[in-house]
């Protein structure tokens, strides 16, 4: 069908793409240019490389052809296609976010952002930092302040060998215990930390003591190291 209208897109690295107009119009940015009659020659896209542009075009192609029929077949198949499509490495994912934003392709923007959100969901801050290489530039005081302000959002659960009892404690408190501190810093992936050697009564006492230790540090009084260290360093047996 040679009568189908096409537009020419040029990537930042000089690659040329000829695309059907309806496909290109999935990008609101390009749509605007076409409607303003600015699309007779190749449309330069200085912010998008050829590799990324080809992916965006792929996405638009797949989503244009399915917008006509409304059957659930297309919706399910489309979702599966999207899942497959977005299975890319992190750098490509961010490039796609930027491109989808620049080209204003809503579906692709939502898909890529949802993917990043899914990576953040239910992870601890340490895990998130590790995943994206975010550098923690807070001073310890600043970090403590943020933690306090949003204390309700930061919880981890400690679980003892009696499965029923879980204790949710603030991370700063749990870090008082060197063992748990190491687990946290090593990005212990399970959100519930099992403590096989500790029964709930002992665990409760330890948590009480850690609380006192943390509160003492906050109120700037003499930290009661002696009691704390005795409990922390002694191996805890059932």
């Amino acid at each position, binding site marked *: 069908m040679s009568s189908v209208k096409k537009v020419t897109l040029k990537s930042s690295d000089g690659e040329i793409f000829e695309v059907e107009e309806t496909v290109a119009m999935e990008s609101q940015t390009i749509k605007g240019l076409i409607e303003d009659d600015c699309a007779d020659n190749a449309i330069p896209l200085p912010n998008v490389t050829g590799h990324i542009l080809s992916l965006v075009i792929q996405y638009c192609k797949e989503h244009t052809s399915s917008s006509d029929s409304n059957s659930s077949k297309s919706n399910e198949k489309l979702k599966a296609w999207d899942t497959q499509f977005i299975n890319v490495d992190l750098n490509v994912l961010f490039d796609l976010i930027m491109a989808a934003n620049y080209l204003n392709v809503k579906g692709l923007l939502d898909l890529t952002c949802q993917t990043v959100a899914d990576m953040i969901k239910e992870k601890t801050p340490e895990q998130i930092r590790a995943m*994206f290489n975010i550098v923690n530039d807070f001073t310890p005081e600043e970090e403590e302040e943020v933690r306090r302000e949003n204390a309700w959002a930061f919880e981890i659960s400690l679980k003892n060998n009696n499965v029923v009892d879980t204790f949710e404690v603030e991370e700063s408190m749990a870090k008082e215990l060197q063992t748990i501190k190491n687990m946290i810093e090593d990005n212990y992936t399970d959100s519930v930390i099992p403590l096989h050697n500790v029964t709930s009564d002992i665990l409760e006492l330890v948590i009480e003591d850690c609380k006192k230790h943390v509160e003492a540090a906050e109120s700037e009084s003499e930290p009661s190291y002696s009691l704390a260290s005795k409990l922390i360093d002694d191996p805890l047996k059932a």
Partner: protein
Amino acid sequence: MAKSTSKREKQTVMDRVSNLPDSLLCHILSFLTTKEAVVTSILSSRWKTLWTLVPNLDFEMFSSDEEQSPNHQHQLNRYGFTFAHIVSRVWALRNRSRNNANTLKHFRLYWVSDDSDPIHVDTWVRAALTPDLEVLDLYIFPPQRFEFPSTLLNDAKSLVVLKLNGEIVLNAPSFGFLSLKTLHLENVWYANPDTFSKLVSCCPVLQNLYLQTYAEEHDKFFKIIVPTLKTLELRFFFNRDYKLEINAPALQDLRFSGSISGDVLLENLSNLVKADVGVDFDDIEDYGNRIRDFIGALSSVKSLHLNSYVKECLCNTTEFDLPIFHNLAFLYIHGACLWHVLPHLLHRAPNLAVLVFEKIWYKYIECCKSYEEDSSIIERRFYEDVPVCISSHLKTFHFIGFKGLTYELEFVGHILKTARFLKTMKVSSAYIDSKEKFRVLKELLMLPRESRTCQIAFNLSKHCIWFI
């Protein structure tokens, strides 16, 4: 024990996520619940206040037995934070960072616990109903019913999605919802019998409507006359003596589940593409005819799902005069009663291309019991008067719940013999024991096929549902 060396290696790679502009980071955070978004405040100074820019608030609180335990109470009391505290605190802190309060576009509150306080819910809903709000999603079970401030809905001129579920009483608004496209009402209470109809008629651009209701009072009138409506899902549980009127010329997708015991009038559904009907048991007179009439109104569909009890009820119709379903290409039927009803349906669907039949293994209609194993019926119904769709159009036939019984094999055999254009015959069953499997497979493969290109597929695992 520590495996932290890999972390240091990664630091040479750039942190691309933090370098995204605020608007994009907020967009990412908008896909998280508020709690998950707040957690990001500790990532780095760049992230500290980003969560406050997200125009969504999303809170959920489900109480369970676990949460009644003394440990949990203890933890909450230590901070003095209850759920209400958290929501209020977040709301206040997020408004601190700008001169004008950050606009709230999306408010979702799921508060399903015994200690939920209607005063708090009232406060938050009122605070949320600003002209910026686009989505309001409430799922609440306060100890006293929450009187929804419907007049305030007049202020929420940009509201596009309204979802209400739980102990909520709704009054009809006095003005229109100029932007509302999606309305989802589940188990809410209506101040008057005609509140629902009034509410729906106030929505000039409504596209999606979901209604789930349990009958508590009689004389409820559900008038759904909406020229813009595209999808409609109705779940009527234990409802009788209701009046339902649907007039929706733009409707494409209809799902109905419940009892068709009230006065039902379906009109103007000529653009309907897909319908999914499942009915509950009811022993009122005429039930079969009512169901027949209901399905008859759906004659323009391309895809039809008939679940559970529908077939059994159709057995009881006095006359099987359904209109012709000219566009019907996909039919999924589910139930026990096969020979009585299926041929009638097939005769009414001349262009059927895909037939999925799921046999369920119970029989609570006595009349059908005798027919089930009577293979002469199969001969009569299918051989003598082969439905047009089978001989000229059927491309795919899927039999779910196949046990390899004689009459089942006969039925499958008849289809294979008469379906000239059949491409795929798929047989699924979790019910065949392994000793039988081999025999059944062999018998199936030996059946003669009219269509040269027909392939037979087997699926003998537990999960054998196949959607087209």
